[in-house]
């Protein structure tokens, strides 16, 4: 099997794996459909912005939860934004954790919020690794066309 075919198979298998494990849902496929010769890096660009936004929001949540008097509405606002952006790129597991997190914000439970934030940070870093691997494969496929 030549390199190209092998890489393409790896890409397909990895995408299927991410869907199966629930990292990504249909929305990610919608984004992939929007990518074409006119916009060959569309998905990577959107995801790159998502990474920047996410890291900012996670920091904001952490800082908000460290305050002497926690403003749960402020924490919730950050989680709400994170939920929106993760839904927009199809990051299902992250999005679902955000939904859970918002419930804890509403209940104003600091302990649960802190625990949820840790889970969210972990889940986000897993997703980031998985997507970066996927994009690396794509780069290799494009390089193999030469």
């Amino acid at each position, binding site marked *: 099997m030549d390199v190209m075919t092998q890489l393409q198979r790896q890409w397909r298998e990895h995408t299927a794996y991410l869907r199966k494990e629930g990292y990504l849902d249909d929305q990610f496929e919608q984004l992939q459909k929007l990518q074409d010769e006119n916009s060959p890096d569309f998905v990577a660009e959107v995801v790159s912005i998502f990474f920047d936004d996410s890291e900012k929001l996670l920091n904001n949540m952490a800082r908000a939860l460290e305050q002497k008097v926690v403003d749960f509405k402020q924490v919730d606002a950050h989680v709400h934004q994170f939920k*929106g952006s993760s839904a927009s790129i199809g990051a299902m597991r992250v999005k679902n954790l955000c939904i859970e997190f918002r419930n804890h914000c509403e209940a104003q439970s600091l302990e649960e919020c802190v625990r949820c934030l840790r889970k969210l940070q972990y889940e986000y870093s897993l997703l980031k690794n998985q997507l970066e691997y996927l994009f690396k494969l794509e780069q290799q496929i494009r390089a193999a066309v030469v």
Partner: protein
Amino acid sequence: MLEPPTKITALVVDDDTINQMIHHRLLDNLGIRNQVVRNGKEAIDVHCSGKNFDLILMDMEMPVMNGIEATRKLRAMGIRSMIAGVSTNTRERENFMKAGLDDYQEKPLTTSKLVSILHKVHKDG
């Protein structure tokens, strides 16, 4: 070069960069010329500058001026473009519709949701 008058134009009103990119690309893909603004006030301003659009995709929660207020203001200004609310906030959906929406779709937008909105766009003067 003269633009054929039957081309549909759209305005994306959303404060989130990711949604802006996705909605802009969705519209581009369907051959719809579109502009992006970041909040309700910018949407009002762009209309005050004399621009008009066949379709407005209006996010609900935005800083400076939210989608509900912007929709009300645009209708009060006599703007009769198709305004489709795009949001995740189901609690405010009724208020949003009452403000003057023609349609409402849950985020995230997809090509098929956009196509269903477009079927309702009237292209009259």
